């Protein structure tokens, strides 16, 4: 019994060390690895200055993004990027993101209610 307990304790301690090590490595990796992607919310929040907090907009010249179908968002961003959809500054914004990032933002906005 005692031996088993000791083994168990040892196993726990080892697991903890491994976990801590992994956490450290993870933390270091997230400092340096630029392929790690910001969340849809982190990226989507940068749209809010024009398109409203969480994409919610009462009435304005800008398009509300809250509740927009994800495919529509992605299609629009691709069209802004390749220039097939004319824009003022959305081309400059769209070229700054990858397709995967469009998708993450699209899912963030699709999940937002149109009104608070």
């Amino acid at each position, binding site marked *: 019994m005692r031996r088993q307990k000791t083994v168990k304790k040892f196993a726990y301690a080892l697991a903890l060390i491994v976990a801590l090590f992994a956490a450290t490595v993870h933390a270091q990796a997230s400092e340096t690895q630029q392929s*790690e992607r910001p969340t849809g919310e*982190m990226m989507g929040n*940068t749209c809010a*200055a024009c398109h409203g907090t969480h994409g919610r907009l009462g009435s304005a*010249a800008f398009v509300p993004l809250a509740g927009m179908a994800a495919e529509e968002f992605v299609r629009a961003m691709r069209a802004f990027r390749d220039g097939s959809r004319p824009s003022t*500054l959305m081309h400059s914004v769209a070229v700054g*993101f990858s397709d995967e990032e469009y998708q993450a933002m699209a899912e963030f906005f699709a999940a937002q209610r149109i009104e608070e």
Partner: protein
Amino acid sequence: MQRRDFLKALGAGAMLASGLSIKSVFASATPHVVIVGGGVGGATAAKYLKLADPNIRVTVIEKNPVYIRPYGSSEVLNDHIGMTELEVRYDRLRDRYGIEFLFDTVIGVDPLARTVRTAGGVQLNYDRMIVSPGIQLLYDRIEGYSASVAESRIPSAWIPGHQTRLLRDQLHAMRPGGTFVIVAPPNPYRCPPGPYERGALMAEWFKVHNPTAKVIILDSKDNFVPGPSMLLGWNRLYGYNVPERFREGMPTEGEWPMKAHEEPGMLEWVAGRDGGRVLSVDPAALSVETEAGRFQADVLNIVPPMVAGRVAFDLDLVDGTGYCPIDRRTHESTRHPGIHVIGDACVADAMPKSGFSANTQAKVAARAVVDLLAGRDTQVPLWENTCYALAGTEYGLYVADIFRLVDGRITRTEGPRFLPLDASRAQIRIGALYQQNWMRTFTEDCFA
């Protein structure tokens, strides 16, 4: 009082007080975040903290009960808006999100005990602090210029208020055919397109109200944002002749070509290479001595060099650059842990000092604070900046950038940044419409 004494003086009192209520970010049921400064950065941070977790107690300490927004404030000068339209109230942040406001001045922080004291005698404990102090203007850096000269005779009108009103009144009373001289600041400064937009908006106003007036922008720099797209706007609207070195890519035919004007127009920009650097000012004569000689003004507007707002110095957050060094991933000060610095006052590498930057920095910092309070890993940050600018009330320009963390620095993602030089008239007009709408949507994202 010296900065160190200032911190120490507070420290002694704070130690006693904090002994009674030991705060732990992990043990605390409702962590308390104190925000110093209720401008764009501070207000946005407060709101996004509450959006992320309504259980966090958020207190904003701000001097003025009514905020006067600097973005768009040059539009007071041409009477496009009135001073009262710059006013922003905090009611909605308080009522909708339960954010607490303390209209008071911070006189000291103890970063170890995590306490802050105000001039009004209030002491608060905090788990994390976000400081968004904006800028202060260094009037005395220009020989002959001072805060009192700025308040009475040569306004800077860069932090809106009395000086904005003074400059507006001077411009409207300027003699027919008079000269309005703007002295643009050296980098880095708040609102990069600002001095050039201001010159353009006044040239447009003079065309109607004082058609023989002149606008001269004196500069120590050789370029500015949004650069060629603004120069092209000046060419089209005010007869400005674009220097050879900026002409590449400008349309020479089509619906709205760049022209070579035989008579120079009413707007002139004297770059650093052409001697535009200001050496001294004579307030009595309203003249400016530059490397290119003396310029006589009828109305003189000087935007002096600037550094982080005073409270950033008081709290010992500033380094030799005059701004606050931070860990870019979280905006946490590298000088005092537990204090995050956002907005114009922080060192943000490639990001300009703008309201939009402060707004996205606030969101990054708020997210980091929430995660740190919860003991979670912080997220990969992402920032954006868009500066809309006007070359005329119906001539909209912009610079737009996405920023990412690369090797510990905030780095601009490569790509086209400006209004294309071959943009159509319609696009240009829509840009101006967007600029006006942005004033409202942006203010709502920050303050409502």
